[in-house]
């Protein structure tokens, strides 16, 4: 284990401080990711893990990667995640109860086993020499060093990866592209559907939210003449996400018709 | 023309020609197939004329390098045993084509596919008997399953898919064991003078008795499945009941002979010591097969299943003759293979015609055929008589040789096996009585007798059955030296007459 000890540079102590401060935070954030209910919170915690890792990269003389980590990962990828989260439902929260029997114990046992074995393996690993440090490699500067490798030794993988990136972008477009399976109904057909359907209930169009209600927000259902809320006045997506307020709470008290009659 | 390879190529060429015919011209494809098989049969006969009877070495040997990396050669050659079986296969092929002129209709695929499969199968039938390279043998042994599987599954009746799968899995299982043994032989040959699959070279290998026993079992189980030996027989009745008659003829007449052929050619040659070790067990299994097959045949209600069970009984006789290790038993077994091919072919072919006309294979549905369709009934009767080994018909000579040969060394086995001849009378005469005799069963009044094509197809079989019963010498003269050679190689001599130990 001692072989791995780093005796490079003078940044030993500050780095240790940095590590021992950030590492627990990172682990805590990662664990938090597992444990929080809301996906958004997970995303935030993930972002924090990534930033921490970026710091670790920089601390390990990987300046370029650290920056890329922040720009690409934390900046772009995590934003993509959040974007999709919003699309799918930013507030939706997982229930953390397990539905597949026995999966969680298996996961925990495997995790303990895997982690424990990994750690003990690393602990027993010997390199046979001292760690070298990147001072020599980074003598021209980290970015230049990487660039030199990337455009000489790794130029072919680099090109391949770029092709992969383009393909992935195309693939995402293809996947996200909505393919209509049937002809979009014409206005005439829609009209026929509306008036010749089973009932004429919706012939005049769905009620708009907020009509007769106490609020006129989009998530407040319209009230029907008898005071009951009309659930179908609210966008289905809001309902699916659970973002709609409970329509029952908007129900007016029983309208006293007799009194009204008197007035 | 004395080239086995050319002989093997002929059916392939024929199958290509058949494949080239338009799908609509079914008759043309049939005629092409018939012409090919007839040519092959004539070519084989011509080859057989040039066979030197007293030479026990392999003849017509040809050897081409195939996969040099592994020392695999495409090498062929025949001795008396293989020659007789090739002769049987190639003579049966045109008879099958001609007798089953219409049996490809109503299959899953086209008519010409049927004949392509038959012709490809014929090539393999020649190859499997001619191969002298163990790897080549194995490849053909397994590849033969494909056309048969397709023939059963594609053109059969009833539960044809299930039967075909059962047949395939059974055979593949055996083939797998054999493959393991072959690989082991190959590996061992590497340690003893270079990797090879050559049969001659492999038979010189030295190995411990335990190794020999295991490898022997690998081969033997494969062959015991092929030549259904009790208790590995249950695939046969299903397959035979579902296949078309022509397929059944090739299946029981030729393919199953690969099992008994393999026992002689591979089990005995490669593992003489292990063969001796297992002989007591195999003899018991053979005797059980004889009696068991016969009793089960008696109990069958379906004509095709009945014939299948009679064959199990007959294969018991063949196996018994092989492992009795006397020249009579051995020659008898080889002759039995040949004769069984024809008598079973006759039973299946005529039975198939009966079934096709009546539309049912249940024996009880027939009745009184002797008066409605005398020629067909007589053909069936004669085939049945051959199957029960009536003296004067071909099977008698072979069956009696097997029994006599076995008796000199294993009297108890032979005595029990002889009870099989009484059972044989029952299993043949019961269907004969139910199907051919008795009052005309309803629905049978209008059945047609055999037409010219069918008569032409069955006549050579009948002629063969009768002629070889009275004059088996031409075949025995070819078989005897080969059998004697094997017996001598195994280190056996015929038991001398004891005079009752006086």
């Amino acid at each position: 284990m001692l072989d791995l000890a780093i005796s490079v540079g003078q940044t030993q102590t500050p780095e240790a401080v940095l590590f021992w401060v950030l590492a627990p935070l990172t682990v805590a954030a990662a664990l938090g990711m597992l444990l929080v209910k809301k996906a958004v919170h997970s995303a935030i915690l993930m972002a924090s893990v990534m930033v921490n890792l970026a710091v670790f990269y920089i601390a390990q003389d990987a300046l370029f990667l650290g920056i890329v980590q922040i720009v690409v990962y934390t900046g772009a990828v995590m934003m993509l995640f959040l974007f999709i989260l919003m699309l799918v439902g930013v507030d939706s929260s997982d229930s953390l109860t397990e539905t597949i029997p026995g999966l969680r114990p298996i996961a925990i046992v495997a995790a303990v086993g895997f982690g424990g074995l990994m750690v003990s393996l690393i602990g027993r690993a010997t390199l046979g020499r001292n760690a070298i440090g990147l001072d020599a490699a980074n003598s021209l500067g980290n970015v230049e060093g990487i660039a030199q490798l990337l455009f000489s030794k790794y130029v072919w993988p680099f090109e391949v990866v770029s092709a992969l990136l383009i393909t992935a972008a195309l693939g995402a477009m293809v996947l996200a592209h909505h393919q209509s399976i049937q002809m979009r109904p014409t206005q005439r057909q829609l009209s026929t559907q509306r008036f010749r359907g089973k009932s004429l209930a919706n012939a005049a169009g769905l009620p708009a939210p907020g009509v007769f209600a106490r609020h006129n927000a989009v998530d407040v259902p319209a009230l029907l003449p008898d005071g009951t809320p009309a659930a179908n006045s609210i966008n289905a997506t809001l309902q699916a996400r659970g973002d709609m307020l409970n329509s029952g709470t908007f129900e007016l008290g029983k309208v006293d018709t007799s009194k009204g009659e008197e007035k | 023309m004395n080239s086995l390879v050319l002989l093997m190529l002929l059916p392939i060429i024929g199958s290509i020609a058949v494949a080239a015919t338009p799908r609509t011209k079914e008759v043309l494809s049939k005629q092409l197939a018939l012409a090919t098989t007839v040519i092959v049969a004539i070519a084989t006969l011509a080859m057989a004329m040039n066979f030197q009877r007293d030479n026990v070495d392999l003849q017509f040997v040809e050897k081409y390098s195939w996969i040099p990396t592994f020392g695999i050669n495409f090498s062929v050659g025949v001795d008396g045993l293989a020659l007789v079986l090739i002769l049987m296969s190639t003579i049966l092929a045109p008879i099958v084509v001609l007798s089953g002129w219409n049996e490809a209709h109503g299959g899953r695929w086209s008519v010409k596919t049927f004949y392509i499969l038959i012709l490809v199968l014929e090539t393999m039938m020649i190859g499997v008997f001619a191969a002298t390279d163990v790897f080549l043998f194995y490849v053909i042994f397994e590849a033969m399953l494909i056309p048969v599987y397709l023939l059963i599954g594609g053109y059969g009746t009833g539960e044809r898919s299930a039967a075909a799968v059962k047949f395939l899995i059974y055979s593949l299982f055996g083939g797998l064991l054999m493959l393991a043994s072959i690989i082991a032989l190959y590996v061992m040959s590497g340690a003893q003078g270079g990797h090879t699959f050559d049969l001659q070279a492999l038979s010189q290998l030295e190995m411990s008795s335990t190794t020999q026993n295991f490898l022997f079992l690998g081969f033997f189980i494969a062959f015991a499945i092929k030549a259904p030996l009790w208790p590995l027989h249950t695939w046969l009745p299903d397959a035979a009941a579902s296949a078309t008659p022509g397929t059944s003829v090739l299946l029981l007449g030729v393919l199953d002979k690969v099992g008994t052929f393999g026992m002689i050619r591979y089990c005995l040659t490669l593992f003489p010591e292990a063969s001796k070790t297992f002989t007591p067990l195999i003899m018991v299994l053979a005797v059980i097969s004889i009696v068991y097959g016969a009793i089960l045949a008696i109990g069958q209600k379906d004509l095709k299943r009945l014939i299948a069970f009679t064959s199990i009984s007959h294969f018991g006789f063949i196996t018994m003759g092989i492992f009795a290790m006397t020249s009579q038993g051995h020659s008898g077994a080889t002759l039995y293979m040949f004769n069984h091919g024809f008598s079973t072919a006759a039973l299946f072919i005529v039975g198939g015609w009966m079934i096709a006309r009546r539309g049912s294979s249940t024996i009880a549905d027939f009745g009184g055929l002797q008066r409605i369709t005398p020629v067909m009934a007589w053909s069936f009767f004669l085939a049945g008589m051959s199957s029960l080994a009536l003296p004067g018909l071909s099977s008698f000579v072979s069956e009696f040789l097997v029994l006599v040969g076995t008796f000199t060394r294993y009297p108890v086995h032979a005595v029990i096996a002889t009870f099989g001849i009484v059972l044989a009378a029952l299993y043949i005469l019961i269907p004969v009585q139910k199907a051919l005799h008795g009052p005309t069963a309803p629905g049978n009044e209008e059945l047609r007798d055999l037409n010219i094509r069918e008569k032409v197809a069955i006549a050579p079989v009948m002629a063969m059955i009768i002629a070889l019963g009275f004059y088996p010498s031409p075949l025995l003269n070819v078989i005897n030296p080969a059998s004697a050679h094997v017996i001598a190689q195994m280190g056996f001599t015929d038991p001398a007459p004891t005079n009752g130990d006086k």
Partner: protein
Amino acid sequence: MDAANYLYLSALLFTIGAVGVVVRRNAIVVFMCVELMLNAANLAFVTFSRINGDLNGQVVAFFTMVVAACEVVVGLAIIVTIYRSRRSASVDDASLLKR
């Protein structure tokens, strides 16, 4: 300070990520956990790069990032597609592999 500590951290993060993949049902969270595992691997690469004193590890980590980006793009597109047809982002709902 011992560079091995980074490796321990990497192992730990990887394990946490793996558990997350198994335990969480929301496809997006699962994806984030996969990212976490990739990042853990990257950390190990960077650390090894430092220990070995050459930049190959960092280059590989760079490639990993690119591939991870690709994966995220395609993966999220798939999630969106599934969500569109099933109105759910739970990986358990997409259990059609069964039959």
